[in-house]
Structures are given as structure tokens and as C-alpha cells.
């Protein structure tokens, strides 16, 4: 028994005009200051006002949103009493908006208490609209979210099946102005979602097709979107791919590129997509035997060479080659982290990864020793051979 959860997805050029048809009285837009400065929040407000809604904007979401920020956002929501929470931004905004929405609906619970085991009974006060402005997070279309516990420098992977958007508006216009580095970081995030979603221990018939389609789109369009941000076809396909991957892995979970990436990201403040993307080839190599059939299927789809190399090795090589094309780091050393600093943090890196929820959904679950080896191999860029 398992569930497939999805918002209504409105996608493609001018998808944002769907907001004109929303019914209600008040909406709270959750966003960050960049979205305000770029005029995106104003545009969303305009559409909501066409629909007859009054709006307020909460634009204090930072990168890697903290528990304090979401509590502040929930206070704003409680005094404004919106019927719609509208998340406009990248992954951090999506994640913060989900937590703000839950706390607005259920003021008595703490953000870190949100869990997949207990029903929340949301949608008594408001519903959620997500409008992603990066092509990677997937948080717009799934029920997971990550908050940062600043006291412990630790990321908390949280989720509940009810915490998904009612409507996801996937309009490529909002991602069109991403700079190349952000395009690359977020694109690698989407690729990691798609590959891990297809190979996790919880993969399933409903998510498989979504993950495969996303992998195909990302390999084809990410280098184009990175090289030429004005390539509107590449932008649109990547925007779709990110949400498709989000929907895919959101229903089948991820694996150890995520647990290791979360850990590295939290301790060294590496952007999420860059961190998980860096670990993806190592995660593929680590699960080469146990997920051999799945990697073969992906390799076949991408027409990769599998006669002289195993499908996993070939896929890991293709991921590295794509990462190289878009100037992404291939090893931890490339991030400018000194060996001394890495070595000092290694016990914490291992322990955080080991405790991460994505560890247990991996097809091959690493032991503590294997995690340590994985980090060491990823530091030097060595092919995983254990």
C-alpha cells in the first residue's frame, strides 16, 4: 500500500494567468526579497487582484529557511487570515511556505513536529498555491520540505502527505532570468531527484515514468538552458522537468546523494542542488549492483554505452560529464573545502547523513564505515569500488 500525491499542475507559457480564476478574499504571498525586486510578486499580486483577492506579501524568507523565519511567517498569516498561501520563489520559499501554512492551520505544533505519521487535517483555513521560480526544487509539487535548525547547523527533512500544494503553477517565465550558476545548481537538483526517485527503495509504478521523463528532458535541455538563458524552449522544458521530477521522487523518495548532500550542505553552506548533484555519481556507483536493472533502463533511455562499462558506471560518467559541461564541482575538494576542515567535520558529516530520512529509502543503505568511505572518496573524486 502506498499513495500517489499530486497538486493540480498548471504548466506552460502564461500558466500564471490561472490565478485570475482563483476564488476567495485574501491571499498571503510568501516570497523573498529578490522576487520583490524582480517584480514577480507584483505580477502575482496583479493576477490575484484580477480575481478580486486582497494580498499581503511576506518577503523575509532566506536561503535555507530557519525555524524562526517560518514562525514569523505564521504569525503574519495568523493576523492576516488568508484563504490562500501563495509560495513564489525557489526551494527555500516553497519549503518555508509549506511550514508557514501548517503553523497557520495548527498554531499549537512546532515545525519540527510535522511528521508523516499523523494526520494534520489541513485546509481548514487556507489552501496552498506554489509558483516555482527556479527549475530544480520540485518542492512545488511534492509533500516534503527542509528547514534548518540553526542551533545545530542541521537540516531537518520534514513532510506529511497533506502538505502539498493544491495548485502548482509551472510557468517558465519565472525561471527565464536565472543566472547560469543557479540554472546549473537547480538543474543538478532536478536530475538527482529524477535518478534517485527511479532507483530508491520506495520506487513504484506511479513514479517511475515521471522520473524517466525528467531524466531525459534534463540531459537534453540543461546544457542548453545553462549556455543560453534566452533559449525559451530549454527553459520551459527544464521548468517542466523539475516539477515532473519533484512529483516523481516526491512519491518514491530519494536516496544517499540526498543524505550526503544534506549533510555537506548544512555543515559547509553549499547550495542544495550543487551538494546533492556532486554526490549523485558516487551514489550511483555505490548502488551499482543492487540497482543494476534500473540503471540499465536509464542508460538505455539515454542511449549510453553499456558494452564495455556497466550501466551504473556509464550513467555515473554521463552525470559527471553533464556536471562538467555546466561547471559544477565533481568532488568535495572542488568546493574549496580544505582537507583539514573536511577531516574535522567528517564525524558530523557521517552522523548527519546516517540520521537523514533519505538514508533508509536507499536501495543500498550504507553502514557508518561505508558512509565515511563515501565522503572520503567524494572528497578526492575517486570511483566508488566497494
Amino acid at each position, binding site marked *: *500500500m*502506498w499513495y500517489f500525491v499530486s497538486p493540480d499542475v498548471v504548466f506552460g507559457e502564461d500558466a500564471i494567468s490561472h490565478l485570475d480564476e482563483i476564488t476567495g478574499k485574501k491571499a498571503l504571498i510568501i516570497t523573498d526579497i529578490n522576487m520583490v525586486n524582480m517584480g514577480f510578486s507584483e505580477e502575482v499580486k496583479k493576477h490575484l487582484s484580477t480575481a478580486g483577492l486582497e494580498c499581503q506579501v511576506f518577503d523575509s524568507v532566506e536561503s535555507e529557511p530557519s525555524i524562526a523565519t517560518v514562525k514569523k511567517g505564521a504569525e503574519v498569516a495568523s493576523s492576516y487570515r488568508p484563504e490562500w498561501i501563495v509560495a513564489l520563489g525557489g526551494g527555500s520559499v516553497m519549503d518555508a511556505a509549506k511550514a508557514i501554512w501548517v503553523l497557520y492551520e495548527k498554531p499549537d505544533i512546532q515545525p519540527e*513536529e510535522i*511528521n508523516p*505519521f*499523523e494526520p494534520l487535517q489541513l485546509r481548514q483555513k487556507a489552501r496552498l498555491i506554489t509558483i516555482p521560480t527556479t527549475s530544480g526544487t520540485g518542492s512545488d509539487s511534492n509533500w516534503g520540505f527542509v528547514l534548518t535548525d540553526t542551533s545545530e547547523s542541521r537540516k531537518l527533512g520534514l513532510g506529511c*502527505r497533506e502538505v502539498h500544494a493544491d495548485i502548482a503553477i509551472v510557468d517558465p517565465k519565472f525561471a527565464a532570468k536565472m543566472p547560469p550558476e543557479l540554472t546549473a545548481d537547480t538543474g543538478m537538483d532536478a536530475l538527482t531527484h529524477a535518478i534517485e526517485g527511479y532507483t530508491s527503495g*520506495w520506487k513504484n509504478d506511479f513514479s517511475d515514468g515521471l522520473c524517466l521523463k525528467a531524466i531525459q528532458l534534463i540531459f537534453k535541455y540543461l546544457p542548453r538552458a545553462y549556455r543560453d538563458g534566452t533559449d525559451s524552449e530549454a527553459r520551459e522544458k527544464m521548468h517542466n522537468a523539475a516539477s515532473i521530477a519533484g512529483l516523481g521522487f516526491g512519491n518514491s523518495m530519494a536516496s544517499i546523494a540526498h543524505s550526503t548532500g544534506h549533510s555537506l550542505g548544512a555543515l559547509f553552506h553549499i547550495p542544495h542542488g550543487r551538494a546533492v548533484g556532486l554526490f549523485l555519481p558516487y551514489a550511483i556507483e555505490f548502488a551499482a549492483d543492487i540497482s543494476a536493472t534500473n540503471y540499465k533502463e536509464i542508460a538505455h533511455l539515454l542511449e549510453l554505452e553499456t558494452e564495455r562499462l556497466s550501466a551504473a558506471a556509464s550513467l555515473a560518467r554521463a552525470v559527471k560529464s553533464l556536471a562538467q559541461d555546466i561547471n559544477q564541482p565533481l568532488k568535495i575538494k572542488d568546493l574549496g573545502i580544505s582537507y583539514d576542515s573536511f577531516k574535522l567535520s567528517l564525524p558530523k558529516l557521517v552522523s548527519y547523513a546516517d*540520521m537523514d530520512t533519505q538514508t533508509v529509502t536507499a536501495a543500498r543503505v550504507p553502514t557508518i564505515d561505508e558512509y565515511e568511505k563515501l565522503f572520503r572518496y567524494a572528497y578526492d573524486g575517486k570511483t566508488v569500488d566497494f
Partner: protein
Amino acid sequence: MPIKFPSDEWIKALMQELNKSQAYRDAAKNWEGDFYFIVEPEGSLKEQTIFYMDLWHGECRSASIVKDEKEKNPEFRIWAPLSKWRRVIEKKLDPIQGLVTRQLKLKGNLMKIMKAPKAALELVNCCTLVPTDFPE
């Protein structure tokens, strides 16, 4: 020789497996908390069975069948019908997935459980090592 489930002999065999397992010791090294695993009657199992386990820093300090639910006051209670426990023990139902889909019901500090998902996985891995005879 398969051990009858649910029985005191079975939970003691699981305790032995846990205390032999390095993987469990590593995964649960920070864990402090005791459990009731409650097997609800189903089919030929006519009475509820309550397993008590005291799990502490990667070690199982005690394990036994408890006759009266009031006998102890563990931090966590997980309950499910016999058929669901069987699926967990035979690794046909992932315990975390079982909890998420509420096929297994949990009472206790959920935040604490969410910080130790791997310990749950290793505990189930140890269950599979106990040769088990399930009632029909």
C-alpha cells in the same frame, strides 16, 4: 527450528540478534527509549500480545512479553494486527512506510523516531534473522 510468533521465546531471540548486530549497534548508538510492540488479534491469534523492549544506546537491555498493558509505561507504543507484523518481519512492508500509511500505528515522541529511521530499519533486519513460525 522456527520459533512460534508471538511468544516470549521469539522476543528473546530477537533480543539476542539485536545484541549481536554491529549494524544495529551503530544505527541506534544514540537511541534511548523503550517500546511496546502490540500484536492485535487476527485469525487464529485470539488475544492481544504485547512485546516489551528496552532499547538503550544500541543495546537491547531487556525483552519480554507483558501480560497487562499497565505493567510498564514505555515511551513508544506501536500496534498493528498480526498480518501487518508478519509483513514487516518478512520485509514485505517497510516499517517506515507502514507507519506513514498508518498500517502500523505509533504513539510516542514522533520527532525522536524521525531522527533514528536507520535504527528502525536495522531492528527489522534483525527480525528477519529470527526463524519464525507464524500462526495461520
